[in-house]
């Protein structure tokens, strides 16, 4: 057995010992802080009132050739943001000084319904995170994007279509409108008017985000159970 795998096995056995209550996630402790904790986020927002924003728009395929997770924010919304020769398109929101000027960076992106549809590329979530966003608000998220966002520390907040329309209207009226996203309370509030709505997130993922935990540590803590399960599979 190599030194590497000895070290790994000893780490796994410690994790297994630590996971006393196997049905609870509260005993789970991460060794890998993969992303910033998320608790309460107060920020101005970037509005993108476009429906079906797909992951090919968020990051086009030709920018997926890297073998490291670096610099994807530069190409976030590349073809909406830049012309073919690389000059910024003035009418795109990320080039509008109203939203990219003071108080940089805005940490909340507000999109139309069915945000993140299409490809499973986690690069889309990386690009959003790398640009500086920590929360995306929409009335509806595509499943894979939502999972990817949660796995890398972006909070997808699903609000009602009515509340989404009020957020867009509020930002339209005052681009410096602040939003507060409160993960412990699961609420999102328009600070200008005090209007608030609650949002759903499962307890396990909420706990992960609050603490910067990682699924893989949880899974490694139950390795023996997984191996036993695998042995019994017919294929």
């Amino acid at each position, binding site marked *: 057995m190599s030194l590497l*795998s000895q070290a*790994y096995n000893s780490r796994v056995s410690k994790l297994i010992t630590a996971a006393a209550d196997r*049905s*609870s*996630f509260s005993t789970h402790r991460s060794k*890998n802080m993969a992303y910033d904790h998320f608790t309460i986020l107060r920020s101005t927002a970037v509005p993108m*009132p*476009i*429906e*079906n924003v*797909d992951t*090919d728009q968020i990051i*086009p*395929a*030709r920018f*997926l*050739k*890297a*073998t*490291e*997770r670096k610099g994807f924010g530069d190409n976030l919304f590349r*073809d909406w943001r830049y012309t*073919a020769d690389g000059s910024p398109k003035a009418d795109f929101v990320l080039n509008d000084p109203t939203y990219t000027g003071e108080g940089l960076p805005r940490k909340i992106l507000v999109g*139309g*319904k*069915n945000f993140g*549809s*299409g*490809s*499973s*590329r*986690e*690069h889309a*979530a990386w690009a959003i995170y790398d640009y500086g966003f920590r929360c995306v608000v929409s009335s*509806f*998220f*595509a*499943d*894979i994007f939502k*999972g*990817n966002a949660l796995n*890398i520390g972006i909070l997808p907040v699903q609000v009602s279509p009515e509340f989404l329309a009020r957020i867009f209207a509020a930002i339209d009226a005052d681009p410096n409108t602040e939003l507060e996203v409160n993960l412990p309370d699961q609420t999102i509030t328009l600070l200008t008017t005090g209007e608030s709505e609650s949002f759903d997130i*499962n*307890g*396990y*993922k909420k706990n992960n985000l609050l603490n910067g935990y990682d*699924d*893989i540590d*949880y*899974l*490694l803590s*139950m*390795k023996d*159970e*997984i*191996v036993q*399960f*695998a042995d019994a599979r*017919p*294929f």
Partner: protein
Amino acid sequence: MPTPTTLFDKVWDAHVIRHIDDGPDVFFIDRHFIHEVTSPVAFLGLEGRNAPVLFSERTFATADHNTPTLNQHLPVADPLSANQLDALARNSARYNISHWGLGHQKNGIVHVVGPENGITLPGMTIVCGDSHTSTHGAFGAIAFGIGTSEVEMVLATQCIMQPKPKKMRISVNGTLGKGVVPKDVALYIISQISASGATGYFVEYAGDVFRTMSMEGRMTVCNMSIEMGARGGMVAPDQTTLAYLKGRDLAPQGDAWDKLVPYWESLKTDDGAAFDVDMTFHAADIEPQITYGTNPGMGTGVTRQIPLSANQADGDASYQKSLTYMGFAENESMLGKPIDFVFLGSCTNGRIEDFRAFASIVKGRQKAVNVTAWLVPGSHIVEAQIKAEGILDVLTEAGFALRQPGCSACLAMNEDKIPAGKYAVSTSNRNFEGRQGPGARTLLASPLVAAAAAVTGVVTDPRELI
């Protein structure tokens, strides 16, 4: 009597190692496919943790997204692409994972090579860092796309943390008309329920049309499940499924096969089992389809007009943005619209049946002079079959050439990019802005509609050429 259960529940529940209260299921994965684009960062993560691959024999690597479709024997010209392909080869070797790289006789698009080699089996759970993993659901497997964090998770633990989706059944009954093929069935369903109509659901396809459909056809429909927002779609395995798989290289053989047959035959939805949503369509309502917009839900019959924005679920601004990008207007007829490119291929329509269908239309005709056609087989096995069946001769006589296997212009990561402003009738799965190249305009359609456009140079009803 036991409670009637769905096919989806039977397969899902058999893979749950642990249910977390107010959280996801710890979900065991039987087969994991990886490719060069979504795996390198996962391997870096693994390295960072000093973790091994838990079951290397359950993961299969193939290079497809970022490979050239001409001169594959030469070094890959783009250094970034070459680096990504090298990383896949290196990582596969380091962790003892089977790797079908560029030039390997089994190389091809991951969702083509998995089934054609018998890696995909009924009752399995299958994931890949690619949303079109839903393709494998054609075999009665639960198969869906995952992100790179989850690729790392599966490499390290053979599990993911997945909340159980809701269940939807889509039945299509009756008999499909002349010139109406599985791709039309998929595009029709998506046009009816929208590109997000099945978000949050896992779909079972049922009814006469799917029972009589070939495995290639079922793969085409399950492939497009993600385009209606569903994580995946599945068809109950039957004799068609088993006949397709039996004898494939990596499928179980002899006794091992025989022992599995009774289990596979049990994989169907019991009478009276409940779905969260249950909808039915009629085969007679489906004509050859084509899309006119920038999401796969924006499709209609090839003989129809572009719908009015007032009739659309999406907001007027989004609808108009889409038509402006396409250079189309409301109420225009799709028939007769000039075409610049035709793309036959992808994990949606890059299989032997698709090439047979395309050849059936172009046989005895000539490629239109204004059309550039890229015909890209899904794998080397498909390519060999095209040659063996004499299809290549038909294509060559009609003025078409065959390229080498890969994802190609479906996502235009390699050199196969449709130029800005040009129109492509494409048998692939997505018509998003810039999907086939910056500024490219995509019209999704079946291989028959693509062939009809290729020989006439305009959008044409293939039924007039059959």
